[in-house]
């Protein structure tokens, strides 16, 4: 009977999935020991990750006969691998590791000190929760938004376009969907209004810099274009850990796809108004979003006039408008030479106007500014 630990290696780049597995093996799997791939009894690879198939091929050439556990959404075509279906469940992963232990003759059940919960709150979920804060939308981590030199962009050419299309389909049919763009697959759970993707904000933002066509061209993936397909088994009561709200996901994708440009269909001279404030406590955005929201909620303004009124960089205003438009919060207002610039009934508009409102000019200082500085920890 052997107490020898099972030597496990995780292949591939550092991703949330990689971190999750590392954390799981280090903290929740007492018989597992993380080692370099060459010394491992078994390797684990996220087969849906970038360039994973080539990685698998190369690794097997160098280490033929070494057991391999692959994590994948769909059953892989590769022979001789132990498949663990994603989204990951700790029980399935532990079963796969036990299989390897049997193969290696390390099947002493007494030595198998696995932290395994009997209820549904599995060890893997615990590990995921501990890591969750690391991969949650981090306002500080992704603060440099690249700005394009052009003024307009076409949302349908970016992830934003395919996402909106998939949202409509998912919400209309109530069926969970999967988007394949050649990048990480994205899952939509319409009943819970959630999205799941195996990527943190940094990785997502990097992907958002490219149009889908450009990404396909660079990577050679999905030359036929992105696909939206039903996800079998996706109608689960308990979506996987790390899900994000559909609204918050679309908001940030649109913000980053915009890269400081206006979406085609909103001219810089067109009057626009915000129907309501975005839920900014739960959305990714820079501090200037509060100003833009406030101005466009109170008054219909053209994007270029909003830039002037707030003295903000155009990119801040245009990206906000792009994200707000994608989430259905922007309405275009027909310019009227007389009367309030609104499509609201005049009576209602007058009632709104009863309140004395300061002109949206830059304040030079004062008490409110001091409060603001204090709130922002300056």
């Amino acid at each position, binding site marked *: 009977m052997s107490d020898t630990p099972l030597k496990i290696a995780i292949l591939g780049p550092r991703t949330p999935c990689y971190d999750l597995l590392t954390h799981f093996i280090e903290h929740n799997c007492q018989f597992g020991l993380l080692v370099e791939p060459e010394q491992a009894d078994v390797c684990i690879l996220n087969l849906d990750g970038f360039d994973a198939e080539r990685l698998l091929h190369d690794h097997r050439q160098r280490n033929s006969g070494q057991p391999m556990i692959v994590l994948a959404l769909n059953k892989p075509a590769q022979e001789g691998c132990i498949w663990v279906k994603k989204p990951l469940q700790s029980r399935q992963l532990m079963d796969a590791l036990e299989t390897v232990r049997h193969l290696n003759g390390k099947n002493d059940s007494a030595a198998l000190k696995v932290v395994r919960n009997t209820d549904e709150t599995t060890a893997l979920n615990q590990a995921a929760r501990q890591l969750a804060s690391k991969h949650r939308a981090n306002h500080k981590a992704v603060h440099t938004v690249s700005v394009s030199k052009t003024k307009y962009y076409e949302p349908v050419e970016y992830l934003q376009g395919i996402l909106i299309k998939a949202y409509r389909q998912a919400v209309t049919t109530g069926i969970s969907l999967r988007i394949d763009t050649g990048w990480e697959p994205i899952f939509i759970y319409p009943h819970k209004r959630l999205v799941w993707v195996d990527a943190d904000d940094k990785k997502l933002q990097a992907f958002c810099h490219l149009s889908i066509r450009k990404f396909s061209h660079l990577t050679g993936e999905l030359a036929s274009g992105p696909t939206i397909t039903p996800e079998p088994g996706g109608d689960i009561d308990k979506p996987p850990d790390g899900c994000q709200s559909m609204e918050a996901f679309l908001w940030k994708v649109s913000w980053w796809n915009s890269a400081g440009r206006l979406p085609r269909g909103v001219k810089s001279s067109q009057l626009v108004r915000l*129907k309501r*404030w975005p839920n900014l406590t739960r959305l990714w955005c820079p501090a200037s979003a509060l100003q833009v929201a406030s101005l466009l909620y109170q008054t219909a303004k053209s994007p270029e006039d909003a830039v002037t009124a*707030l003295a903000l960089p155009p990119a801040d205003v245009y990206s906000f408008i792009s994200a707000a438009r994608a989430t259905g919060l922007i309405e275009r207002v027909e310019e009227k030479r007389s009367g309030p610039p609104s499509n609201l009934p005049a009576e209602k508009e007058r009632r709104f106007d009863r309140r004395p409102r300061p002109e949206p000019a*830059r304040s030079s200082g004062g008490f409110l500014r*001091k409060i603001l500085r204090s709130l922002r920890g300056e």
Partner: protein
Amino acid sequence: MALYNKLIFTGPVGAGKTTAIASLSDEPPVRTDALASDMTRKFKQDTTVALDYGVMTLEGGGKLHLYGTPGQERFDFMWEILTEGGIGLALLIDNSSPDPFRDLRFFLGRFRPFIDQSGLAIGITRMDLKSDPTLEAYNREIEKLGLKAPVLEVDARSRRDVSLLVQALLFHLDPGLVVEDDDGQFAVS
């Protein structure tokens, strides 16, 4: 002449006013909780019977005084006194309560004269427990009352959430408000 250096937190019992003030205050807030003896006991053991008070120290030594009104309607005689010199109202509504729209209408009605002279921001708490009504529905409801205000989901325990609600209120008062040396982030700890 009243000094305009107060921010008022109001809302029904259990909406998170005391917690929100504690989240922002630089000093331990003064609380006047007492054992609830009326219907409030159903919701909370302790409740605010007079007011909550906290303070934010500003640059140059100035102070922003944070006042929380008692949630029970029988203390409404205090509300007018408390709002004197207030720059705005942060209304917190508990989304898990049996009729949050009734609470919304009640507090907006009672504070309307103050709201018309100052600013308003509405924070909806406990949306993690009950997601309906949605923020969109709240917006429709306040629009029916002829009001426009930021409506945000808020966890009163989170300084960031409460801070953003107050920042929204400030920008609602003046969208042109500017902070120099802005690093472009919500740098709220």
